[in-house]
């Protein structure tokens, strides 16, 4: 019982830490590129609305980056404090991947973010632009290496076990493991969607409190455009990822679908309460054949059910069904809401494009065209990307259980024998700190948005000197 308690508490602690952590890289990965876009548009047009957008979002970037760094350091230590078995067993694979993440990504980001944030008036324009590019590139590299490792844990290959320890046989096979391309694309798109809706939501908030500045229009359109363009791509990519999972981790797909019996023409369970005792879904609402159609692209295709993953003594060899089933539905539901809202926003902005206040000819879209309900809906959707991303990660990570590395080692094998009360103590403290920081983070974004909407964020811009600004005062000291 002692080990079980420590195991569950350690798992909750790791889940809490990594859930908190992933929120911020999800923002910085794509926001880096969006900032680079703003920066390039400014260099091209010398239009200071792009620089204003850059300056607003670079603050959010700095804040998110700091949150990501400190929670990431926590992760790297928890491997040792709580999960020593992981590195002892698969360290020869995970080690180099993590080392390459630190060497090719962390330092790049950490060094150039200083120049990106505080170097605008100290370095030539091209170097500032290069720094912005390198920070964005660094965050993407970081995502790449960690997704490689995570994907390898789902679909391991290119190794052999010698005396219970994994040894690499082919780095190409390890890096390009079967689920890596799908997971990486899915996560990059998730990041861009998160940022698209964040930018659109915060800009809608500024618009609703009376900010009619040109940068708010540019930002709102950029955010909505990212959302509307990428959500169909993401749905398509999610489908491909699902097919890949069906091939390599059929038990996970069965849990996602809430499918107990192997069958042809399996129904799509829209709603239901999975009951692992009775091994059925209670109060299920189903669409016949649709799950088979989605996953096999044939109405009577065969899908493997959960009951095929039970040992002879009755122990389940599949993941816990309800959390996987529900988080999958939350992810898909959020995705559908993103699709409806972003397309509605584009349609309204296009249909009433003549409403543009500035009377500038040639505008395809007008923010004035957006009805109030759409604007109000965009504000809470600012964080919809977080919900979908977390739900997606819960689906895939809980869906891998009881394995830590699919087919190689179970989660239980990796846990440290730290006394349960000690883990409970640290867990509660982490939770309290993370809750407070999350509130502070959202509060500060709202505060920065209000301040920018009032126009008192210290802007008195003279962009005359070749990209170098002479600015009144905009210091973190303000």
């Amino acid at each position, binding site marked *: 019982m002692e080990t079980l308690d420590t195991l569950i508490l350690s798992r909750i602690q790791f889940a809490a830490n990594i859930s908190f952590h992933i929120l911020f890289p999800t923002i910085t990965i794509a926001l880096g590129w969006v900032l680079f876009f703003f920066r390039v548009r400014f260099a091209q047009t010398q239009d200071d609305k792009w620089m204003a957008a850059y*300056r607003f979002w670079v603050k959010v970037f700095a*804040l998110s*980056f*700091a*949150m990501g*760094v*400190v929670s990431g*350091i*926590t992760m*790297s*230590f928890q*491997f*040792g*404090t709580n999960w*020593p*078995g992981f*590195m*002892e067993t698969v*360290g020869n*694979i*995970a*080690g*180099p991947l*993590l*080392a390459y993440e*630190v*060497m*090719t990504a*962390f*330092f790049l980001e*950490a*060094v*150039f*973010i*200083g*120049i990106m*944030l*505080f*170097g*605008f*008036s*100290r370095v030539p324009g091209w170097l500032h632009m290069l720094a912005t590019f390198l920070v964005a590139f660094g965050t993407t590299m970081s995502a790449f290496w960690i997704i490689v490792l995570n994907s390898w844990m789902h679909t391991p290959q290119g190794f052999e076990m010698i005396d219970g320890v994994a*040894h*690499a046989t082919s*780095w190409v096979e390890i890096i390009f493991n079967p689920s890596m391309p799908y997971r990486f694309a899915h996560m990059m798109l998730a990041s861009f969607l998160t940022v698209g809706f964040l930018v659109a939501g915060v800009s809608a908030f500024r618009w609703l409190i009376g900010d009619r500045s040109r940068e708010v229009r540019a930002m709102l359109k950029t955010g909505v455009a990212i959302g509307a363009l990428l959500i169909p791509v993401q749905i398509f990519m999610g489908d491909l990822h699902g097919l890949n999972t069906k091939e390599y981790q059929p038990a996970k797909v069965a849990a996602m679908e809430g499918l107990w019996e192997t069958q042809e023409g399996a129904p799509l369970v829209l709603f239901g309460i999975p009951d692992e005792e009775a091994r059925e879904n209670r109060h299920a609402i189903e669409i016949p054949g649709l799950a088979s159609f989605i996953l096999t692209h044939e109405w009577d295709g065969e899908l493997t059910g959960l009951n095929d993953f039970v040992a002879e003594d009755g122990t389940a060899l599949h993941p816990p069904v309800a959390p996987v089933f529900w988080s999958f539905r939350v992810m898909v539901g959020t995705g559908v809401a993103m699709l409806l809202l972003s397309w509605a926003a584009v349609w309204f902005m296009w249909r009433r494009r003549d409403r543009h206040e500035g009377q500038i000819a040639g505008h395809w879209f007008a923010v004035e065209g957006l009805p109030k309900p759409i604007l109000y809906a965009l504000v809470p959707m600012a964080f919809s990307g977080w919900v979908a991303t977390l739900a997606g990660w819960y689906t895939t990570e809980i869906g891998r259980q009881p394995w830590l590395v699919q087919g190689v080692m179970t989660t239980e094998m990796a846990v*440290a024998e*730290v006394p349960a009360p000690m883990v409970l103590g*640290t867990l509660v*403290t982490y939770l309290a*700190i993370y809750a407070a*920081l999350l509130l*502070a983070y959202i*509060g*500060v974004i709202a*505060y920065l948005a209000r301040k920018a909407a009032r126009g008192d964020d210290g802007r008195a811009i003279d962009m005359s000197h070749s990209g170098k*600004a002479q600015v009144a005062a*905009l*210091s*973190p*000291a303000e």
Partner: protein
Amino acid sequence: MLPDFANPADWLPWTFASLMGLSILIYVVLDGFDLGVGILFPLAEPAEQDRMIGSIGPFWDANETWLVLAVGLLLVAFPQAHGMILSTLYLPVFVMLVGLILRGVAFEFRAKAHARHKQLWNRLFFTGSLMTALAQGFMLGLYIMGLEQTLATYAFATLTAVFLAVGYSFIGATWLVHKTEGALQWKSVRWGRESLWGVILGIGAVSLATPLVSTRIFDKWLAAPQVFYLSPLPILSGLAIVWLWRMLRAMPFAEDRRSWLPFAVSTGLFALAYIGMAYSFYPYVVPEQLTIYEAAAAPESLLIILIGAVFVIPTILGYSILAYTIFRGKATELRYD
């Protein structure tokens, strides 16, 4: 001390131990000064505090990354040692992590949150810096005591915790001497003088305790002929301390000459103390329990990391120097424009 370079199972662990040692040293100096600035923070006036933040703002992120590299190298090169050390140090590691979280985010929040919350974030910035330094000092003490957990070792670790926090304040003060001017520079010189005792006692305590805990280390230092080869370490350290003391009594010099010197000499002093420690513990990574050769990951995995490191680490050093060059000179308030 040198490995057999014909045998990968011998020179790879040695190389990785050296790389890890180097990144810990770089971390201790670089994050040492910015943690120290955080510890000195409440002693300054609000306007000076913004200047102090300005002196570390562009660097702290990269400084902390050396810790990630160090713990990363421990993790990837010596996975077994990583697990043993970190699960033994569960609580101090936790305190350090909470400290790093608080100070890292307070850094950003104090500048961006509503003015009425600034004081709160200032306090958290100080608290986080202090917690981090104390926790690292505590871990250093326990490590020297061979990771034994008794009342006596805890008492020793508490002492090293205080000494390291004061030592970080010292190197932080020498950094500020270089990066500030006027009244704040005068204060920094005084802080440097007043915290030098932490460095002296810290180095003294570690130097005395290490050979007493293990006869192996005792013999390593005090048997002939090593004692002669090693004598430059304590002698140079003593000279550095005297030099620092004399400088800090006379500074700032006219026209701000040699304002960089105290920080440079402190870095040298930290490096000397560190080399001494590394000599004591080699070849053990977990004191008296696990050597780097026993704990090392498979040679083929280490080799693939090393190939990358050979290209990447010089690049990292290069662009870190670029960043320090861009932000050279006296610190100003940080501006995003």
